[in-house]
């Protein structure tokens, strides 16, 4: 019986890819292990091997096709004795759309606040750039890369060090082309020794440099957390203001997909607790770029929490020579009057998707992206809740205690009389991250949880 060969997932977060090149043609015989095609994922070009033997009956997706969803049939393999004529039409029909798992990949930000006119005042949803600025489409990955390259051009003392940042161009390709442009003096591959190179980075920041230390993921930075907190965050204070640590620690944070408990953890609430640190967790490409540039220029240690799933997402980024976003300024993505949804980082995908769906039912949500967790723009949240009288917070981190629980406490103290319902925190569940796909989904928060929470606080 003819077998369909499906577009493979070649990385934990790959949802689609480019079929770069077929290395076999129709009529060729293949054995298990033969390389059949080259496929570009969001990170690299990978070779795709045959797992069965047979004859290539039909190639369904041609060389160079971009955006091929995972699990789309790309070719048909015939067993001995079958011919291409045996291929029935059903198996070569266009593949079904990749299943929408509700993870909010299509939760693009609303173009503008298309909300109903209400008595409530409109919140300021204006962008971080001047009106009329030309825009371009960039992924978060490209935005982070551009931010570092621009700052390295601007200041010779900026350098980047970390595992695989130079010759490999980044495990997640965030440092692509940097070695070529800036050379081995400024783009430095380290051995796998987080504790040691984090400390060397802090020492270098004391010696007059501006290091960017990349952690392959923030999970590995636990090996280095003493240097981050005891050496970087506290020195300005302990030295009576004589010495500080202008350093950026960055890398992907939080759950990726199916990588298990040790590789799936959101550190937002951990680092947000530490005085002396700046903590940033961007959502969009524009925020990633503007905030990373600010981080590199900041005289303090900055914890820059990225997200692997967001790396490949595209957003509009302003075309400006020097675009920065100040810390401590939340962004209102959507003006609304019925409820305030507060989130940051990947949590914004749930928040925005929920807001869209709630709008269909006539519930008008205001959506705030905190962007920086330390300093945290609680004023914007308070002001919004004074208008909507209800609040739901959204994050992937654990609940005890969380960014949401802190916001709840601030609202209770500063906006108690304005609240018409208890604040609900949508968070990751209080469990280590499971591997099984169904359990992993349950362990994270979701758009439907956010919708349920909003219905609860709005009594609708």
């Amino acid at each position, binding site marked *: 019986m003819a077998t369909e060969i499906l577009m493979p997932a070649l990385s934990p977060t790959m949802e689609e890819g480019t079929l770069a090149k077929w290395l076999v043609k129709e009529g060729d015989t293949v054995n298990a292990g033969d390389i059949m095609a080259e496929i570009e994922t969001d990170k690299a070009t990978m070779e795709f091997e045959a797992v069965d033997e047979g004859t290539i009956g039909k190639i369904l997706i041609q060389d160079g096709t971009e955006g091929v969803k995972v699990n789309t049939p790309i070719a048909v393999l015939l067993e001995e004795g079958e011919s291409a004529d045996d291929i029935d039409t059903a198996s070569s029909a266009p593949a079904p759309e990749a299943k929408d798992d509700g993870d909010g990949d299509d939760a693009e930000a609303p173009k503008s606040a298309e909300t109903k006119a209400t008595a409530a005042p409109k919140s300021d949803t204006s962008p971080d750039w001047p009106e009329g600025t030309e825009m371009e489409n960039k992924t978060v990955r490209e935005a982070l890369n551009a931010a570092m390259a621009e700052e390295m051009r601007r200041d010779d*003392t900026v*350098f980047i060090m970390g595992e695989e940042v130079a010759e490999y161009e980044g495990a997640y390709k965030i440092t692509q082309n940097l070695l070529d442009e800036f050379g081995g*003096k400024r783009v430095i591959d*380290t*051995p796998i*020794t987080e*504790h*040691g*190179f*984090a*400390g*060397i*980075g*802090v*020492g*270098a*920041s*004391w*010696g*007059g*440099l501006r290091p960017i230390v990349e952690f392959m993921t923030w999970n590995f930075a636990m090996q280095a957390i*003493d*240097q981050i907190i*005891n*050496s970087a965050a506290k*020195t*300005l*204070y*302990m*030295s*009576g*203001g*004589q*010495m*500080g640590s*202008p350093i950026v620690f960055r890398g992907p944070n939080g759950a990726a997909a199916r990588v298990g408990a040790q590789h799936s953890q959101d550190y937002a609430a951990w680092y947000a607790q530490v*005085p*002396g640190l*700046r903590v940033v967790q961007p959502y969009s490409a524009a925020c990633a770029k503007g905030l990373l540039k600010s981080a590199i220029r900041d*005289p*303090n240690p900055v914890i820059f929490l990225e997200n692997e799933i967001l790396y490949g997402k595209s957003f509009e980024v302003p075309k400006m020579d020097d675009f920065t976003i100040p810390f401590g300024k939340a962004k209102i993505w959507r003006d609304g009057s019925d409820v305030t949804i507060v989130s940051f980082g990947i949590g914004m995908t749930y928040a925005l998707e929920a807001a869209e769906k709630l709008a269909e039912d006539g519930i008008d949500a205001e959506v705030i992206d905190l962007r920086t967790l330390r300093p945290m723009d609680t004023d914007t949240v308070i002001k919004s809740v004074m208008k909507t009288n209800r609040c739901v917070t959204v994050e992937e981190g654990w609940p005890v205690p969380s960014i949401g629980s802190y916001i709840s406490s601030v609202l209770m103290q500063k906006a108690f009389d304005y609240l018409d319902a208890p604040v609900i925190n949508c968070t990751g569940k209080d469990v280590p991250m499971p591997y099984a796909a169904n359990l992993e989904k349950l362990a994270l928060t979701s758009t439907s949880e956010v919708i349920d929470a909003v219905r609860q606080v709005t009594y609708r």
Partner: protein
Amino acid sequence: MATRKSAKKPNVSADELTQYYRDMLLIRRFEEKAGQLYGMGLIGGFCHLYIGQEAVVVGLEAAAEDGDKRVTTYRDHGHMLACGMDPKGVMAELTGREGGYSRGKGGSMHMFSTEKQFYGGHGIVGANVPLGAGLAFADKYLENNRVTFTYFGDGAANQGQVYETFNMAALWDLPVIFVIENNQYAMGTSQKRSTSTPDIYTRGEAFGIPGEAVDGMDVLAVKEAGDKAVAHCRSGKGPYILEIKTYRYRGHSMSDPAKYRTREEVQKMREEKDAIEHVRELLISGGHASEEDLKAIDKEIKEVVNASADFAKESPEPATDELWTDIIADVAPQNA
């Protein structure tokens, strides 16, 4: 390799020898005074005295040039005095006063002087080792021909990050001198009970880092080894390890009764190996100084130390709004 000892005849001038005497004596008298103030409740928390180890920092500072950097652990008062920091500012930090180097916010273990390139005073055992290599990384990057003295103890020498740092320092030829002040006890655990190798400097061999053992009760031997290490680093050959065998006379901290060693052991070191006595004898026997001359120096040092204690008592506690300053910088501090 035998532990480096000084040449029979001092290879330094009489003036230099006198300066070592003065510098070592300042540390000893300062530490004795700190111990006294601790007993009076004027100094709180942890206070780790350097008495017995004076020749290490004095010998190495004699090998340093202007602009070279130093970073150490929590037993740091001696390093600060040896690199020229003001005893008043150090003592006032110990008493937690406004006149202290960190305006009372750092304490005994956390003091810094960017002016003297002293990068702390660090309370986490071993953590200052990568920090020192990082300072050296910056010097190499900026091509300024400086070296960094990174001091740590025999106890810290068992921390994993020390070896992570050895690896990178050797890999990248960083101009850093790793100074292992081996005083034989990691708090209360003797080297024999905690450390697999009798000569810790030999661990550098695995990373291709040269090193040697030095008699740390002999300031001239320390100076000579320091010169060699500095020349190695400054010529671009990468890191160097000095394991300086020394001895602390007092407990680990003020609250340590030091039951893990005998009174006789301490007494024997004091009587037979004391670094200050050694230089004193050299000065007298060489005819470089008379008893009267040395007495005058003693008196002068005592006055400096008393003045620092008076300052540290009189300086007010930091203003309460200091609680909220120096947490986040608005502009980059001029670190280097």
